[in-house]
């Protein structure tokens, strides 16, 4: 099969999601930065109290999901740019996706353990 096939009709959703998740991550970075400046990391107890606060937990969760989605689109773009054989690309796509799902689950478990 040497024919070039294009026209998968997706990409807009991922492109848009990458922008939205970037905004979420930037906002979360500012929140954490403000908290650190405000002394939330002065002691281990203060740090723990900050991270286990309901609202912060919600934002941390959003941040991790955003990070993973953002990384999925970005890393997939790298494979699409540089990896030509479809089999290897599919393997790398799957590996990236599974690794990111694993990381997300692990991170969420850590937040809720606090």
């Amino acid at each position, binding site marked *: 099969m040497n024919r*070039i096939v*294009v026209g998968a009709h*997706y*990409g*807009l959703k*991922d492109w848009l999601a990458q922008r939205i998740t970037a905004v979420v991550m930037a906002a979360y970075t500012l929140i954490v930065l403000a908290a650190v400046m405000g002394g939330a990391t002065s002691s281990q107890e203060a740090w723990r109290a900050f991270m286990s606060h309901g609202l912060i937990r919600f934002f941390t969760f959003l941040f991790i999901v955003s990070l993973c989605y953002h990384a999925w689109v970005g890393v997939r773009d790298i494979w699409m*740019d540089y990896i030509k054989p479809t089999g290897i690309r599919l393997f790398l796509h799957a590996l990236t996706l599974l690794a990111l799902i694993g990381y997300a689950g692990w991170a969420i478990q850590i937040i809720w353990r606090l």
Partner: protein
Amino acid sequence: MTNSVQMRTYRFSIYRYDPDQDTKPYMQDISVECDPMDKKLLDAMVKLKAKDDSLSFRRSCREGVCGSDAMNINGKNGLACLADLAAFPEGQPIVLRPLPGLPVIRDLIVDMTQFFKQYHSIKPYLVNNDPLPERERLQSIEDREELNGLYECILCACCSTACPSFWWNPDKFVGPAGLLAAYRFLADTRDQATSERLDNLEDPYRLFRCHTIMNCVDVCPKGLNPTKAIGKIKEMMVRRAV
């Protein structure tokens, strides 16, 4: 007479490759004397050609309209007929290479098949199924203004061959020149195939290989902005989807 004219010698390092004779490409060092009447790089190249007629390059209008003499000049794509000779630093050779990423036919001449294939894939013509008017399809002044900065493209391929996304996927990514042309027809109020055009581009390769690197904007000899046009296409897709 010759004594009063300020002559300047230009040194060149030129990519040479003749597939019939050379096993691999090489850089040829050559110099040429130019007088003040030689204003542009192309003028010097025409003199070079007279000195060594085996040197091959495309040229036609010599005034930045036909887009034939696009090449890589000192590492940056541009038109030889628009590059000021006086602006080249003295003491350094002018390095000329073919446009990067496309197959070389000979010396500075590249095979543009892939480039035009992508251009044709966006249907670069007006689609309008209404009966033909007696004279022409008129636009309002405001509607016509939408096409400024889009219709001026001369298809010289400077932008697409400066685009890393086009280097890696020239067979699947439309490239900045093709996408600028695509938006030219998307922005045209007389065109009726907007949705089909957007369908045709909504693809992770055809449109979304653009990572906003903006090399295209940097090199365009006509001062156009393909990145902005690509952004507008994405904006239209968002407007259609949400």
